[in-house]
């Protein structure tokens, strides 16, 4: 209710750490589902990765990390969930 000072405060979302912010978009699932092997994706944590397998379930991708602030991660295989993918090249 506008002007109601007793209303509970609206929780503030922290876009830096909140992994849920993309789940409201249906488009991200479609993007994930159709990504071909060899595509390069950008992850929420800043890493880049190459798609090595796509189960086409709209949720998951098999990837190999190609760029990371953590050198130990480069070249490793991983699975990434749709909400952690922020873009594809």
């Amino acid at each position, binding site marked *: 209710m506008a002007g109601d000072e007793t209303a509970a405060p609206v929780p503030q979302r922290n876009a830096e*750490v909140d992994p849920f912010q993309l789940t409201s978009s249906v488009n991200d699932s479609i993007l994930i589902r159709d990504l071909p092997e060899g595509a390069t994706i950008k992850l929420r944590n800043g890493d880049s990765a190459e798609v090595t397998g796509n*189960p086409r*379930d709209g*949720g*998951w991708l*098999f990837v190999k990390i190609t760029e990371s602030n953590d050198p130990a991660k480069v070249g490793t295989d991983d*699975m990434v*969930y749709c909400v952690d993918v922020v873009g594809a090249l």
Partner: protein
Amino acid sequence: MTSLINSPGSSLRGLVDLEAGLVSREIYVSEELYNRELEQVWARAWLYIGHESQVPNVGDFVVSRMGEEEVILCRDRKNELHVFLNTCRHRGMKVCRYDDGNTLVFTCPFHGWSYDTDGRLVGVPYYDVAWKDNLDKSQWGLPEVAKMCNYYGSIWATWDKGAPEFVDYLGPYAEGVRQCFQSSGGEDNGVEVFTPVNKWFIPCNWKFPGFSFDGDRAHGAMTHRSINVAAIGPQGDANGGSRSGIRTPFPQTPYEMSVPELGHGGHNSIYDQPGIAEYADTWMTEPGVDDYFRAQNEKKRAKYKDTYIVGETALIWPNVNIQPHRILIWHPAGVGRTESWRQYPIDREAPQFVKDAQRHYMMRYGGPCGLTESDDMENWNYASAASFGHIAQRYPYNFQMGVGKDFTLDTAPGMTLNNQVAEENQRSRLKRWIEFMEADSWDDIYPVKPTSEWSK
């Protein structure tokens, strides 16, 4: 015979009197007994899952059933076969909603938990931010069967780690089941199955078909009389027609045979001489098919020229009938409901026109639209409905045919025999049913010898 299940001091042996040949209808209509079967039978017995030709490539899967529950037969990245329960460990959703296909992972459509084809939980959404300190992924893979066996291409599994090895579960029928998965030329693991699987529901208890198939020779002359006249067999109306192929004359004596200690049994014969019968032309309506099967028959005759064949088809307890060209499975789907599945093996290397001929014949013979099975379904379905009645349950079924006439022969080690028209096999299955229903563990129901000992 009145209801004994809920009577003080009652036992299942009061419902099934095999010496007198009297069986209460209650075992086919009781919800309580059905629910007890889920644990005592279906969570314990070796069950037929499918055929490896259904999953030839890495990542291939097919959904099957064990009792009431769906399982996934799949081939993992290392080419190993697995059988998993089709349910997510998080909230229970099916992780596979397709009948068959190829996949990298099984991802739950509910919250996204994802399982590798070897069953490991490999993907948990928000793992790093929400689960990491609580969830040990290594402990939350898909539930896998306790034992699985690839028996000459046929896949079997059990949920009970105390079960005997599958070949010992088969006992004297081990060789017969092996031969059912041979090509018509006698090559082991020489068949594939037609896909997709025939599946349909019938309104009867699973024990109606499960306990009578390959154990009820007396029904054929009456139940299938019209189909015999219709000449649906591959020879058409040659030799008067039939629903089946032409039987080759080969010195033999047919019996009802079973292994009461194991529950298996079938319409089997003792052959008076070793070897395989000479091929008799059968496919008069399908040009060229006899040429193929005749050549294959020569190969098999050469392989088995010194071997006495015993066994052949069999109902493998509790719910699958194995034949060279048909695999019949009856899954429980409620006390008065059964899901029938049919698979049809065919020589893997047969030319396509032979495969087509075999498939067409099987379609008109068996399955949901097959004329012969339509006959059977009418009996089972109406018998089941008529057995649910309050008054009807006062009257037991009669299983007295051949009681006390059983015998053994040295030429059929491990088998109990009876007249070719008898109900010996059905009584053997009922005996095994009681044993399973009353047993605390496999220790109570496997006092028999390993397969290698049966012939001694």
